[in-house]
């Protein structure tokens, strides 16, 4: 049975990946007993919530990172937490691998059914169950789209702070799994800072409540441990989130620089001045070109870099911060600082940043995005290094990233029609990651390890460090049937690192077939 394929147009024969030592999954009972299991799942959910036709399944064979593909045997679309638990119980009893999926916008292959089995789509478990303004809490189901929550509470002047770029599509359940970031993290933190409680279905079907509406529930901080566990600990079926009052005032500035180095130094300068902006986003010239062709946000086409800085809070505070930010920019040879005069201008500045990934199509047929993090002071160094690599590999790079927290998103531009370019892009990506680790950074700031970066884990963590993490996984997911093949290096000898190694296997399989 064949499951995982590369996303580029095949001559490649798809292959099934089975991590070593996972005999259970290799004996996936779906393979021999599919009809019986499908009947049972239909009994739980009803016939229009179970998908097993190959052409319909194909919708679920990849996520936001399309270079990996893996086909589930069955997709189920439950509409309640109870149904989720029932489905999980069946999977547990039959030892069928299963994985949860929200909107499929993830960027590390985290929701891919690497070993086939059951994919549980949570889009229909999507009610906002409660909004409690008095206590500043909302209780939502995992399929609720991130921006729905903010939209629902906006009339009362409230919002939900974490806002990943995909917020109009991504689900809060997915955000919890990935501990998603966004552009507001320098001031407001990431998803984990806003989740107080969870109801989860464990891989054996048991339903457990972690945390609650109040702070500091007795015992270990299992909410903190669960958020960001990339769907390998359980399936969140209820999420208790903190909601916040909208700030009185917001100011957005665009600072235009001749080069990345000045812009990077300005970022360090703003942080060093004791200012905590809501957002501190950077785009380089390639990104500007793409954005301007795509949406026309008004960024100067000849600029080396553009910084978008946003501050919010009480009006007097916001007014007072514009001057020092401008001064720091001036010290770093800024060409122009433009302060958005009204909401329309502000939204236009943001439109460019938020549309940046989508706009890449304007300047390149394909891109490969990295998500590494560095200490903020290393920005000028890493930018210089990336530009060197760009020359070495002959591939353009567009940098669009969260400079305020040192979270890079170099988009390596390539053309998959050109023989070997993806290969080069991947290799270059791995060099960037290694350099970031060398500077004391991290391989992923918000996209997750998932399938994509699992072989890079040893760059950051020792065997003992990883063993401690596996010990936590054993607590939640002792049999490993939930979301197998993610986060941890497989260590297989014929697997080189990451997507590159993936290709190595494909070629090997082809060679032997």
């Amino acid at each position, binding site marked *: 049975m064949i499951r995982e394929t590369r996303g580029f147009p095949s001559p490649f024969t798809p292959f099934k990946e089975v991590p070593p030592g996972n005999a259970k999954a290799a004996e996936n009972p779906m393979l021999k007993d599919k009809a019986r299991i499908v009947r049972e799942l239909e009994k739980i959910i009803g016939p229009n919530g179970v998908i097993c036709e190959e052409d319909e399944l194909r919708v679920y064979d990849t996520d936001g990172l399309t270079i990996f593909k893996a086909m589930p045997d069955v997709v189920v679309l439950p509409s309640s937490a109870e149904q989720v638990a029932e489905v999980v119980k069946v999977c547990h009893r039959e030892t069928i691998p299963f994985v949860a999926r929200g909107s499929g916008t993830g960027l590390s292959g985290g929701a891919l059914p690497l070993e086939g089995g059951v994919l549980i789509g949570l889009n229909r478990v999507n009610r906002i169950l409660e909004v409690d303004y008095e206590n500043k809490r909302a209780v939502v189901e995992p399929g609720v789209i991130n921006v729905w929550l903010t939209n629902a509470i906006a009339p009362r002047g409230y919002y939900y702070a974490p806002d990943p770029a995909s917020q109009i599509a991504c689900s809060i359940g997915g955000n919890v799994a990935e501990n998603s970031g966004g552009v507001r993290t320098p001031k407001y933190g990431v998803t984990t800072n806003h989740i107080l409680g969870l109801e989860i279905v464990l891989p054996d079907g048991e339903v457990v409540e972690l945390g609650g509406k*109040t702070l500091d529930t007795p015992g270990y901080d299992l909410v903190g441990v669960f958020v960001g566990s990339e769907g390998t600990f359980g399936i969140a079926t209820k999420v208790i989130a903190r909601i916040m009052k909208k700030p009185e005032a917001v100011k957005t500035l665009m600072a235009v620089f001749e080069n990345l180095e000045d812009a990077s130094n300005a970022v360090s300068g703003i942080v060093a001045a004791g200012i905590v902006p809501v957002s501190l986003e950077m785009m380089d010239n390639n990104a500007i070109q793409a954005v301007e062709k795509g949406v026309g946000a008004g960024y100067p086409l000849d600029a080396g870099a553009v910084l978008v800085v946003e501050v919010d809070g009480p009006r*007097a505070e916001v007014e007072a911060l514009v001057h020092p930010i401008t001064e720091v920019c001036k010290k770093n040879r800024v060409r122009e600082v433009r302060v958005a005069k009204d909401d329309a201008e502000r939204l236009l500045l943001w439109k460019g940043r938020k549309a940046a990934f989508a706009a890449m199509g304007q300047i390149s047929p394909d891109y490969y995005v990295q998500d590494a993090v560095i200490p903020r002071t290393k920005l000028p160094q890493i930018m210089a290094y990336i530009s060197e690599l760009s020359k070495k590999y002959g591939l353009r790079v567009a940098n669009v990233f969260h400079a305020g927290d040192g979270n890079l998103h170099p988009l390596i531009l390539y053309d998959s029609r050109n023989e070997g370019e993806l290969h080069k892009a991947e290799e270059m990506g791995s060099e960037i990651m290694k350099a970031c680790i060398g500077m004391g950074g991290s391989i992923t700031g918000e996209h997750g390890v998932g399938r994509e970066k699992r072989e890079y884990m040893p760059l950051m963590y020792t065997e003992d460090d990883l063993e401690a993490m596996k010990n936590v996984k054993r607590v939640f997911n002792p049999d490993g049937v939930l979301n197998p093949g993610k986060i941890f290096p497989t260590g297989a000898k014929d697997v080189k690192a990451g997507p590159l190694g993936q290709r190595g296997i494909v070629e090997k399989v082809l060679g032997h077939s």
Partner: protein
Amino acid sequence: MLSEDILIQRLGTIVGPEHVVAGPGASAYAVDGRIPRAVTFPGSVEELSAVIAFASAERLGVAPWGSGTKIALGGVPERLDIVVGLSRLNELVDYVPEDMTATFQVGMLLKDAQAILGQRGQWIALDPPYTDRATVGGVLATNSSGPRRLRYGAARDFLIATRVVHADGKITKGGAKVVKNVTGYDIPKMHVGALGTLGILAEATFRLYPIAPAEKTYLVAFSAVESEQRVIAQLLDSSLVPNAVELLDREAARQIAGQVGLPWQAGHYGLAVAIGSVPEAVDAQIAALRTLCGNGGGLHGHVLDGDTHHGFWRAVRNFTFGDGQRAVLKASVLLAKVSEAVRKGEEVATRAGLRLGIVAEAGSGILRYSLCGDRPEGFPQGVAEAVNTLRAFTREAGGSLVVLEAPPEVKARVDVWGPAGSAFSLMQRLKEQFDPQRILNPGRFVGGL
């Protein structure tokens, strides 16, 4: 079991004999009245690791000890052989002000860490009780927090990396020294508030915050806690951004105001709101607060600035009540239930014949009840009744109640942690994975873990 002499000798081999205390000296390190057989002070993370590996091989019960300010938290130890004092692990490991991250060994006093960071206008955004004596590690292991949590969050929100010595002596790291990271599981959070039961924290890296350019306090009196609650609800629904919103009961308000030399009329509840920002924004918000409180029944408003402001919050953080027999309870409730929780505390204390003082982080829903009794004989039973009644109330109100501090006679009568709910079996399994021999603070954590 190892003889006393061999135990001391073996520990001395690891840390140097001058860093081992036994005999009468060890009684200063008693936990709930249990005196350890030896106290040892490792001088490096490696020595700490060797001590724990030794304890593991000999199955010795271990209690980590920072400066002992919160040692009364937790159940009575199931067994206690050695106390591992962390005071020699007190170095700054690294600090890059421009990155706003810093790593400390856990035995450093939080006060000393803040002094280092303060020179660069930065701080670890934690203002817990025992301001001058608490260690970085002790604050983390007990998840201790203070009034400014409302603005900045708690340790879990800005502890970004850890080095931990496991129950078998292995040293591992979790997280990364960058402000944003999702590589692997969030190991640091697992150890916050875990009382060292999953491993002993050795180093901690924090994301830092700039110290606000200006901070002032508006302190106002209320004759009824219910009207104060209404004002707090309006404040939290407004666009004001307070650093802290503290509700003080009549006793706490009287004492704390007295400590900083402010006039205070007996019988009034206090509301203290700290505002931190650029100076002009502080003043603008204080003006708005004054109006809000005035319209809501607030009396005698004071603006506290400079030393008075700092002294006031120090007194709030360190507020304790009574000498001798004393118990401190921490309740966590929904924001809307804070005034009820205050009233409930008053009722319960009166009924049990106890005196009471309450400081409440009203914007976070966290109350600290200090109880003391004049009649020693009735004290344990009185506190036990107070715990049971308040716990029933907090549970109904969607919250929890933990005994932060109480004499062993009280602990014999109540569960200091209260129930951990349906997640308890996961917690048990976590403990089994990380400390299968149960040597790390056995019996002291939730559910007797």
